[in-house]
C-alpha cells in the first residue's frame, strides 16, 4: 500500500474511532432505537385493527401496510439526513478552529487525503446507521405486518445516494465555512429542497407549470429530496403510486437522469471541498 492511500485509510480509521467515542453517535442510536420502538408499537396496533375488520380487503390491507412502511422509512430518512449533516458538520471546521488539524496536516499526508479520509470514515458510519434504521423498519414490517415493500433493490441504493449528497455537502462546507454557518447552510439547502419538492408535487397536481419548474430547478441545485421521491416511488406498488393519495406517493418523479446528476453533484461538491481545504490557511 502506498503512503498516499495509507493516509486516507488512517484518517478514515480515526474518523470511525472518533464516531464510536463521541456522544453524537450514541445519541443518534438512541433516537433511532426510540423511533423503531415507537414504529413497532404503532404497527402492532394498526395490524390488530386491520386484521380485526372484516370489511377491509386484502388489497386495502396491503396498501395500508405499504403506506405505513413508507411512513416509517420517511421518518428513518429524516433521521438519516439529520445524521448526515450533523455527524461531520464540525469535522473540518472544528479541527481547523481548534488547531487540532495542524499536527495532522504537517505530517507527510496530502491535504486531500485528510478530506477524503474523513468523507470515507463518515460515509461508513452513516451507511451503517442508514442500514440499521431502514433495516429496522423493514424488519418490523416483515415481522409484525408480514409485509415487504417492492422495489427495495432500487429504492435502498437511492436512499444511500441521497444520504451521501447531504454528507458530502456537510463535509465540503466545513472546508471553507465555520461550523455553525456550515450547519445552517446544509439544513437550509435541505429545507429548500423539501419545500421546493412539495411545490413541484402540488404544482404538478394542479397543473401549475411555474411551481413545477421551480421545484425542478431547486432539485438540480440540491438533488437530495428528488432522489428520496424516486426511492419512495420505487418502494410502493404501481397502484399506490397511481392513486397518489398518500404523502409518500409523488405526483412528479424526476427522470432517471437525476441519479447521474446526483452522482456528479457529489463528485463536484467534494472536489470543491478538496480545493477549498487545499488552499486554506490552517
Amino acid at each position, binding site marked *: 500500500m502506498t503512503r498516499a492511500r*495509507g493516509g486516507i485509510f488512517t484518517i478514515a480509521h480515526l474518523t470511525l474511532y*472518533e464516531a464510536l467515542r463521541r456522544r453524537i453517535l450514541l445519541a443518534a442510536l438512541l433516537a433511532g432505537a426510540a423511533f423503531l420502538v415507537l414504529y413497532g408499537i404503532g404497527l402492532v396496533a394498526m395490524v390488530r385493527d386491520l386484521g380485526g375488520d372484516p370489511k377491509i380487503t386484502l388489497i386495502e390491507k396491503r396498501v395500508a401496510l405499504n403506506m405505513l412502511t413508507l411512513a416509517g422509512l420517511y421518518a428513518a430518512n429524516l433521521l438519516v439526513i439529520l445524521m448526515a449533516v450533523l455527524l461531520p458538520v464540525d469535522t473540518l471546521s472544528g479541527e481547523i478552529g481548534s*488547531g487540532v488539524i495542524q499536527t495532522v496536516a*504537517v505530517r507527510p499526508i496530502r491535504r486531500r487525503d485528510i478530506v477524503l479520509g474523513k468523507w470515507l470514515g463518515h460515509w461508513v458510519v452513516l451507511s451503517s446507521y442508514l442500514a440499521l434504521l431502514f433495516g429496522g423498519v423493514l424488519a418490523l414490517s416483515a415481522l409484525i405486518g408480514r409485509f415487504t415493500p417492492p422495489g427495495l433493490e432500487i429504492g435502498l441504493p437511492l436512499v444511500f445516494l441521497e444520504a451521501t449528497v447531504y454528507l458530502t455537502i456537510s463535509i465540503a462546507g466545513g472546508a471553507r465555512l465555520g461550523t455553525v454557518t456550515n450547519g445552517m447552510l446544509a439544513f437550509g439547502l435541505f429545507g429548500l429542497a423539501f419545500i421546493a419538492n412539495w411545490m413541484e408535487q402540488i404544482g404538478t397536481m394542479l397543473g401549475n407549470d411555474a411551481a413545477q419548474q421551480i421545484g425542478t430547478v431547486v432539485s438540480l441545485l440540491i438533488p437530495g429530496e428528488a432522489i428520496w421521491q424516486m426511492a419512495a416511488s420505487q418502494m410502493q406498488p404501481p397502484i399506490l403510486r397511481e392513486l397518489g393519495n398518500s404523502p409518500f406517493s409523488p405526483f412528479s418523479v424526476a427522470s432517471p437522469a437525476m441519479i447521474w446528476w446526483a452522482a456528479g453533484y457529489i463528485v463536484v461538491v467534494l472536489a470543491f471541498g478538496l480545493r477549498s481545504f487545499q488552499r486554506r490557511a*490552517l
Partner: protein
Amino acid sequence: MPDFVIEAQGLRKEFGAKTAVRDLSLAVRRGEVFGFLGPNGAGKTTAVKMLLGLVSPTSGSARVLGAPLGDRAARARLGFLPEHFRFQEWLTGRELLRFHARLLGLPRRDSAPRIEALLSRVDLLDAANRPIRTYSKGMMQRIGLAQALLGDPELVFLDEPTSGLDPIGRLLVRDVIHERRTRGTAVFLNSHLLGEVEATCDRVTFVKAGATVHELSLHDAGETVEVEIRAGSLPDDVRAAIVSMGRVVDGARVATPGAGAAPAIERLRLVVADESRVPEIARAIVGRGVPLYEIKIARKSLEAWFLDVMGDEGRPG
C-alpha cells in the same frame, strides 16, 4: 546534505488587508537550537506556519530541509509542537502516538518500541492509557512533545513548549532539547521566556512587526562583549590605549568610600570587538604599575537585547 535546515528570504503573508508577516528572512543551521523572539502579534506563529506549509506565503521564497515549503517528503523529517496545543482529546496518549506513527508511515514493529521509549522519556507511561482530555496542561504539553519527536525529526518546531509546565517539566523540556541537539536535530524554538531561550539556544533572531530585524549568537560573544574595569587612577596614555580598543559606555573616577586618603579609583565600562581584548587591557593597566582591582566580562542579557531591539514594540503586547 545542505548546511541549512531552513533558508527563508523575504517571506510575506497577507490576510486580506492585514499583513501578518512583512519580511521573514532567516537561516537555521543543521543541528543548532534557534530561538525565535518577538512580542505578541509580531507574526511569529504565522511565520512558523509558513515554514511548516500550513499557510502559503503571499510572496518570498524559502526552503526547509532543502525542499520547497510544504514538500511532503520533507514533512516526514519534521516535528511540530503547536502553541495552544490541542489534540483529539478522546484518544489516549498512547493511541495519539500510534495515530501519528501511522501518519508518518512508520511500520508498527518500528513505532511500538519508539512510542514506549518516548512515553517513558516524557514521564507519561502511567497515564498512557488515559484519554488526553483527563490530562493536566503540563501532561498535554508533554504528550505533544513526544508527538513532535516521534518521527525522529531532523528539524523540530516547538512553539512555546514550556507554557503551563512547572519547573520540573521545564527542566525536562530543556533536557530533551539538549538531547536532540547532541543527536544532530535542529530545534526551532518559539518562546516568550527569555531566560529559557538564553539557556537553550545557540542563536536567536528578533521579530518586530512582522519582520526579522536582528540576529544574535548566544555562544560566540562577538560584538556583545562588554568589559567592566575597576582600577587605580589611570595615566592619560593608558586610558587612551584602553579606549582605543573599544567604545566607552561609562567612565567615572570615584573615591573608595571610607578609605581616607586612598587613591582615586576608576571604573570603566567599554564594549570591545571580542574576548581577546580583555588580557590586552589587563596588560596595559598592570604593565604601568596601576593597581587592577577587577576586570570582568559583562554580557548583555537577552532581556536587555530584547528591549533594545524592540524599542517601542517592547511594550506588553
